[in-house]
């Protein structure tokens, strides 16, 4: 128990009703009172409520996250820090994380998305890494929803506006449109950077007496209670939450990035953390918590851009582009010098203590922007135990309940969807429609707005491969440069997760890793962004827990540990949840640039007689969760397709071996739209046709079932005819089914006896897929 801090004039007293307004339950408020032994001040209640928000405390998810595998020989830094890291050889590591900025992006798409990018970049460079590439995973409502164009345009402009300015290439991503996101879009941003493993920086406030230095943008009133807003559902009053959205300044962040990397190199810091969600409060508390220390802040010293800021506002502001550093005592000047070089403000705002408490002082009624310094006579306004705010924050194992059965057999699906006999289906017309659908067609309108080539590292860019490949310039102490090649991909298909969260979760990881091997990379580590609805709804909690188990099983099977991540709950509006969307991103590494593969059939392969083959488990024609079925029925339906992780592991090993043996000309995994779309994409990317036959199948379903099914664990490859025996042999050695489908050539995708569609038609439909939403994109 401690003496009660001074209350500030005009601030309301903390009550259960006020606590509820701040997002605390009655039980949580009672717990806070019990631990404190007194009523908190207004500012303290603000601090407790943001630290206990779902966004900061992970209170509903922590018990489940513990089941994810986080260890492996390549792991340099696992979860718990600002970002995770995996070894990429020669003492260097790839530092990466993914974060959501869903709620702010729905309220204000440009700034919401922009600050999402800014936040994830800071998480990465806070670790001492120079960011080298970004990805994003976006979800919007149905293409014809009246808000979709506005949201899509705003989010894409915001991501580009921030990433382009700071100069980190946005090299890939994924987008899905589905009615479940009509009132709650998803914006998940991923960044990877490069650091020396022994020179990583951590968010620890160690060394009693060490100065706490505030660096970067001044504090304003933007984003107050952003973390709390992100921890609640949306309703009718959503638009009124605009002031909770932060405003970004990528130029300031560029200066901050350069200054930070210079400061880190001088080794004058004990620890550093960016002020992200819950701003000054969470950065202070988390740093002290990790170090087992305390922190005392002098709020009078906080740089500010607006008058009359109260302690409550300073503690909860989510103004962007700010860092909190703990310097080694006596070396503050080195921080100030680097900041001066980059025209940044820096101020000592406190020091590390051994009290285990978060103490803030401020002079009641004093405003440094108005009053002379001699008027300052700070008194304690916040005095809270660090433990209460961090490790001892509430943790729930919320009730779970499996929803009722909602499956139909594929036989039923096909008959429902086509209204009877299969001969009525014009597969060619269906394929043209599918390849031109927003979920399947080209996303070039989006990635043309992202600088994807800055930093001279983009080797496989957007639309060229199943994953992006970037060159990392790793600088040795003597200034010499080692070039390393990383593959990055982000994936999730919420429709498959909806039908079966356990299998669907595993499918997300498997697809992401498959994309990495399809460009010739070996998956090293994973970060996740778990987007779900209200965890207090047992069916949602069940799906969350199941998805975690699915993720965990696939990560174990594929040997890809989880090194960082983020959870975003309460993604629902008026009680309607989004599809469960556990998005995952994987960082892989190529042994050399020569191992890289694209997804396109090689036009020169037509003359050379390039062979097209299907590797992996033959289709059962299971259409569950597929884009085609959705298009036919207007809802997510069908039997879950499931995944055989042993078959997946074998397939990925085989394809990685083939890529490293330089036996392939292209590799492309079968995902949204199924085999037909996979073949069409390989054809249209470089404008060459293919003559193939229907793959062998065990059943007698109509061809559309086999061509549009999205069962996982399948990759279509092409290769020179001379390599045919070698490719077959590698597949046999790995126990992977190998089937030649046909050859590259001609100017149409010709599926024997089923359809023949000119590549030019496929290409035209593909490239105009977003036109209906965004207009002509020339």
């Amino acid at each position, binding site marked *: 128990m401690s003496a009660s801090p001074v209350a500030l004039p005009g601030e309301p007293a903390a009550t259960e009703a006020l606590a509820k307004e701040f997002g605390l339950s009655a039980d949580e408020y009672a717990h806070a009172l019990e631990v404190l032994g007194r009523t908190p001040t207004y500012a303290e209640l603000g601090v407790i409520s943001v630290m206990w928000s779902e966004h900061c405390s992970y209170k509903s998810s922590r018990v489940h996250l513990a089941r994810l595998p986080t260890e492996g020989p390549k792991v340099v830094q696992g979860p718990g820090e600002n970002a995770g890291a995996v070894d990429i050889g020669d003492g260097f590591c790839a530092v990466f994380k993914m974060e959501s900025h869903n709620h702010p992006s729905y309220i204000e798409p440009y700034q919401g998305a922009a600050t999402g990018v800014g936040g994830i970049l800071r998480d990465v460079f806070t670790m001492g890494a120079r960011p080298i590439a970004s990805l994003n995973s976006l979800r919007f409502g149905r293409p014809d929803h009246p808000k979709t164009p506005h949201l899509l345009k705003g989010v894409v*402009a915001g991501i*580009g*506006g921030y990433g*382009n*300015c*700071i*100069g980190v290439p946005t090299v890939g991503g994924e987008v899905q449109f589905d009615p479940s996101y009509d009132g709650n879009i998803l914006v998940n941003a991923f960044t990877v950077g490069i650091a020396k493993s022994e020179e990583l920086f951590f968010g620890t406030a160690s060394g009693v007496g060490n100065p706490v230095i505030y660096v970067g943008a001044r504090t304003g009133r933007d984003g107050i209670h952003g973390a709390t807003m992100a921890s609640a559902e949306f309703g009718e009053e959503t638009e009124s939450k605009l002031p909770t959205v932060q405003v970004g*300044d*990528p*130029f*300031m962040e*560029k*200066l901050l990035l350069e200054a930070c990397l210079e400061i880190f190199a001088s080794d004058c810091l004990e620890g550093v953390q960016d002020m992200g969600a819950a701003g000054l409060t969470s950065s202070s508390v988390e740093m002290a918590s990790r170090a087992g220390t305390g922190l005392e802040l002098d709020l009078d010293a906080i740089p500010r851009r607006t008058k009359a800021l109260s302690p409550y506002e300073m503690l909860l502001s989510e103004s962007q582009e700010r860092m909190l550093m703990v310097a080694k005592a006596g070396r503050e000047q080195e921080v100030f010098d680097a900041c001066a*070089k*980059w*025209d940044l403000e820096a101020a000592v705002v406190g020091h590390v203590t051994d009290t285990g408490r978060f103490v803030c002082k401020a002079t009641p009624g004093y405003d440094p922007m108005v009053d002379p310094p001699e008027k300052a006579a700070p008194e304690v306004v916040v005095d809270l135990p660090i433990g209460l705010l961090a490790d001892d924050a509430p943790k729930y194992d919320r009730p779970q309940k499996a929803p009722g059965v909602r499956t139909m057999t594929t036989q039923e699906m096909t008959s429902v969807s086509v209204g009877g006999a299969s001969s009525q289906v014009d597969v060619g017309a269906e394929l043209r429609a599918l390849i031109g659908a927003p979920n399947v067609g080209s996303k*070039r309108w989006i*990635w*043309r*707005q*992202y*600088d*994807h*080539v*800055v*930093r*001279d590292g*983009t*080797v496989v*860019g957007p639309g060229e491969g199943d994953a992006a490949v970037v*060159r990392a*310039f790793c600088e040795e102490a003597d200034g010499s*440069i080692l070039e390393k090649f990383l593959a990055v991909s982000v994936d999730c298909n919420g429709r498959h997760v909806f039908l079966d969260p356990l299998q669907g979760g595993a499918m997300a990881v498997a697809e992401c890793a498959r994309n990495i091997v399809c460009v010739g990379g070996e998956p090293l580590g994973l970060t996740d962004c778990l987007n779900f609805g209200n965890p207090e709804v047992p069916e949602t909690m069940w799906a969350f827990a199941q998805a975690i188990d699915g993720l965990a099983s696939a990560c174990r099977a594929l040997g890809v540990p989880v090194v960082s991540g983020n959870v975003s709950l309460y993604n629902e509006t008026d009680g309607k949840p989004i599809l469960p969307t556990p998005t995952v991103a994987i960082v892989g590494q190529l042994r050399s*640039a020569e191992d890289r593969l694209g997804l396109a059939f090689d036009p020169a392969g037509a003359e050379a007689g390039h062979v097209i083959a299907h590797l992996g488990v033959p289709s059962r024609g299971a259409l569950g969760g597929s884009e085609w079925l959705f298009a036919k029925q207007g809802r997510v339906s069908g039997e879950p397709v499931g995944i055989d992780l042993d078959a997946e592991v074998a397939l990925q090993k085989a394809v990685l071996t083939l890529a490293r043996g330089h036996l392939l000309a292209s590799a492309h995994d079968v995902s949204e739209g199924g085999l037909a779309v996979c073949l069409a994409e390989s054809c249209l990317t470089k404008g060459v046709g293919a003559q193939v036959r229907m793959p062998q199948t065990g059943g007698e379903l109509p061809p559309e079932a086999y061509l549009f099914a999205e069962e996982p664990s399948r990759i279509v490859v092409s290769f020179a005819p001379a390599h045919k025996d070698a490719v077959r042999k590698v597949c046999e050695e790995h126990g992977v089914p190998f089937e030649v489908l046909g050859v590259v050539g001609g100017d149409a995708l010709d599926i024997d006896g089923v359809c023949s569609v000119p590549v030019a038609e496929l*290409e*035209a439909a593909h*490239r*105009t897929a977003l036109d209906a939403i965004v207009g002509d*994109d*020339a």
Partner: protein
Amino acid sequence: MQIAVIQFPGSNADWDALHAARDVLGADARYVFHKETDLGSPDAVLVPGGFSYGDYLRPGAIAGYSPIVPALRAFAKKGGPILGICNGFQILTELGLLPGALTRNQHLRFECRMVHLRGEAEGAFTHGLAGQVIRVPIAHADGRYQCDAETLKALEGEGRVAFRYCDAQGNVPASPDEVDAEGLRLNPNGSLAHIAGIYDASGRVLGMMPHPERASEALLGSADGFTLFQSLAQHLETAR
């Protein structure tokens, strides 16, 4: 051969320029921070792309007030070769070292993709490029070249249009809206007379919106941009 790469606050293609000049061309290239007042003694200067001063006010406008600028002007005056790429081009126009201005792209969006350029003028960075087609990326929101009729007449008349947007065969668009086989405008930003880059009157100061330094290795999908660096090396060799 010494090459200075100027770093303004917000320059972000400084690495791209340094890498192409130092690691690919093999020059003794180094950064010069904008707060310096002395360039050292470089043989050429690269003004890299990015968002100097956040592009606030106008792209390139505030960079003109940096301490290094007088040295840059002096270097130009004595005939030193300067290449301004993207934001560097914008800065050179704001400094008045090149005429005209770069305004918001016609479609009002940032645009990043490969384009084809036809070389038209002989100069320090384009020896042997006249009539040749190169494939290089663009990445800009404000790349629409504009100038008054008199300036355009001078540029055309004096052979100072270094590059024009064109198709893969080198044909400049018949109309501003002409698209390629993939449905993309040949002139990606609405530039006057399809201009992608111009020289000053000396033929030694070049500004261009596309990024030759990002297309200087086959690994990056095109090495066509490297011809500008080779031309510079040849120019300096000849001038020596």
